[in-house]
């Protein structure tokens, strides 16, 4: 068996494999639901209802999608340049930490200064956190997958230390929790009276900005060239190392924004369960979106819907909500295979 590139893939060739991948994902989930004693139709029906069944649930889905858009963008930007940033989780927390440091009353600034300051600081924190592994990669050739992964563990321990020490809420009754942000440092609601906050709008704007960077700027061209073939890019005079470092700053910055948005828009304080793995789920989001920034928005909404829906489904009929994680992981694997099959055919020689 051999893979052979297809010169001009037909429409069917481009549509059928991804469709089959989605079908396969649902098949796997159905089988697992049956194992847990749930009727697959009921399970998927409840997931759908839980995600979109009411105004409240729709807004909940949008809110849950917000951090995923940021981390999904962070990873899409990095992966396009073949910078394997698996550390968005830590970068998110770095952004959250800086937001809490600046936003809990240390500065007496009005909201229109406070919010941009916190956002910028959060971006900077996330960016700097990825700069380390990126420098290790460009200077010493250390694989960034493992270093960014290990940084996740290190940084979470650091956050744990902060929440039990310097950032501990004096009113927190011993819980590892930071003080609450001052009202000036809170992102307002997008629509008065509804739970959806401005972080969602910021995420959409970020997606648009990344899309413009990718398609219209020299940096976008350079990042893609470096990702596709760093040797040819370097030969042609593209400053490969600088491009990788710029990519790292952009990617880390976007992940840092996720932390800002979660703390400032939703939670109001930093705890150790601020992110239930948004940094890792962002990988699935980015891959499902084929690394396209606007696709990230759709993929994040899809993923958030499954999470929100699965939670409510689980409460209703007791099929564990980990079904959502399984669906996403298998969707990722089926989808990368499907994408390959849109470009290559299997040949028996």
């Amino acid at each position: 068996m051999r893979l052979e590139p297809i010169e001009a893939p037909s429409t069917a060739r481009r549509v059928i494999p991804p469709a089959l991948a989605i079908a396969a994902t649902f098949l796997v989930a159905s089988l697992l639901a049956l194992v847990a004693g749930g009727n697959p139709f009921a399970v998927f029906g409840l997931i759908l209802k839980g995600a979109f069944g009411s105004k409240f649930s729709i807004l909940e889905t949008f809110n849950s999608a917000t951090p995923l858009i940021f981390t999904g963008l962070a990873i899409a930007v990095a992966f396009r340049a073949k910078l394997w940033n698996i550390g968005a989780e830590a970068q998110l927390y770095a952004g959250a930490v800086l937001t809490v440091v600046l936003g809990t009353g240390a500065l007496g600034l009005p909201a229109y200064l406070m919010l941009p300051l916190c956002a910028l600081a959060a971006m900077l924190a996330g960016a700097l956190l990825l700069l380390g592994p990126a420098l290790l990669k460009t200077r010493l050739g250390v694989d960034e997958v493992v270093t960014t992964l290990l940084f996740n563990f290190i940084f979470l321990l650091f956050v744990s230390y902060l929440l039990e020490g310097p950032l501990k809420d004096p009113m927190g009754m011993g819980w590892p929790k930071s003080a609450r942000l001052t009202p000036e440092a809170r992102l307002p609601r997008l629509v008065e009276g509804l739970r959806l906050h401005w972080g969602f709008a910021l995420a959409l704007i970020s997606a648009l900005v990344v899309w413009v960077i990718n398609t219209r700027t020299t940096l976008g061209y350079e990042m893609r060239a470096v990702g596709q073939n760093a040797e040819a890019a370097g030969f042609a005079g593209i400053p490969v190392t600088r491009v990788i470092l710029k990519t790292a700053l952009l990617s880390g910055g976007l992940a840092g924004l996720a932390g800002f948005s979660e703390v400032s828009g939703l939670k109001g304080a930093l705890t150790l369960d601020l992110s239930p793995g948004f940094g890792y789920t962002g990988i699935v989001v980015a891959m499902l979106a084929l690394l396209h920034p606007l696709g990230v928005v759709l993929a994040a909404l899809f993923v958030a819907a499954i999470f929100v829906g699965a939670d409510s489904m689980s409460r209703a009929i007791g099929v564990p909500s980990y079904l959502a994680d399984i669906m996403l992981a298998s969707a990722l694997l089926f989808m990368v295979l499907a994408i390959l099959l849109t470009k290559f055919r299997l040949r028996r020689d």
Partner: protein
Amino acid sequence: MSNSEKAQVVLRLQGITKRFGPVTANADVSFDLHRGEVIALLGENGAGKTTLMNILFGQYTADEGAIELFGQPLPPGAPRAALDAGVGMVHQHFTLADNLTVWENIVLGVDHLTAPTLKARQVKSRIRDLAERFHLKVDPNARVGRLTVGERQRVEILKALYRDAKILILDEPTAVLTPQEAEALFTTLREAISSGLSVIFISHKLHEVMAISHRVLVLRHGQLVAERATKDTNREEMAALMVGAEVSAPSIEARAAGAPLLSLRAVSTPDQGAAPGLKALNFELCAGQITGLAGVSGNGQAALSDLLSGLITPSAGEMALHGSSPARWSPRAAIANGIARIPEDRHKTGTIADFDLTENAILETYATRFSQRGWMDWGKARAFAESLIKGYDVRCPGPDIRIRLLSGGNMQKLILGRVLEENPDIILANQPVRGLDIGAVNYVHGELAKARARGAAVLLISEDLDEIMRLSDVIHVISEGRLSPAFARGTMRPEELGSWMAGHGFDSHGMDTGAPDAA
């Protein structure tokens, strides 16, 4: 071997046909190979030689036809069948694992994978016996990664002999050897042939074909178009048969050299792993001249090419461009200083496979010519790509297709256009025609000749001595990072250059001046 009619048929191909989609790679190919016979298989790139060998070795299954080995039918699609029946192949790109020793490479795959041990001692002693018998000197305990190219080829041949190969297929075996090493290879082959080995010799070096083969088969567009006894044919006829037409190469008229545009004074660069760096090189490229750099691959060509491309900087010595040394040296500086760079590997270094033609066309100039303050001007870029496609005869459906889908020749034409449009006065052409068919070869050579005529200084790096001798005004030979004196056109015979390529003569000459002197 005139008595081949009577000798035993060891390999018989009957009506082999193989199609890849709409492309027919082999069409009804039939021939016999006899015991102790050497067949030369000639053909351009893409003529179907590799496909034919892949079918023999079970990597592909033929759509029609059958193969017989020693009178027995060969089961199709079984990679081990041909090996086990006694067919060995020495690939053009060696199939050796660098982290293993010589004996480990030779014994790889010989015993079944479930065998409990490797029997190192017996293996090594058998290798030593074979090495002695066939004059293939190599240390069984040496790591392959540390061997020279010539030694590696000996390991490849030993691999086949160790498996008692009765048929040996050699794919472009001399491409990486000095003329002297090639002669030693022929000695070994003659020895083996006299003891009954049969050989299929794939090559495009016609003088070698004349020297070693008994029979010549010519493949063109997948078909066997001619078969001649070697003694009844000549090089001109063979060349014409390969291409299907008379070959016309551009002619280079002698003319006086212009001013030096680039000069190196005692320039050294560090070694890169096994590849040697430059050793105190003195060197000049003059306007209106093609300077040929001959040498066995891996002797410092990469270092010189990387240096002129801006990828590395000298560790010692001085480089001057147009009389002054550049303050900073990088690929961008090289381009800005008017150096056109045609890289050795157009797939890996010259282009980005999944970029379209537009994106590839502006790879070197996007920052200076196709963007403003960081914003891309895609309209202008696409127009530029279209002008290259027209101006340099790049055959393709349009500027929006991925360059991966272009043939090597068209890919090279795009690279050529990309760099020549900048009106460079120095051109670095590293193996510019390797793997191209004759039409594209002539096109590329013609463009280099035109650039020379308008006063550019051209450095032509090639392993093909014929190409070097045909095109160059002056020739240098490089060996282990050292450079020979410059030899003026027509002053050296191939054998003399071969002696330099093998590393002789450098010590007696010591430091050369870089100025042309007829040695």
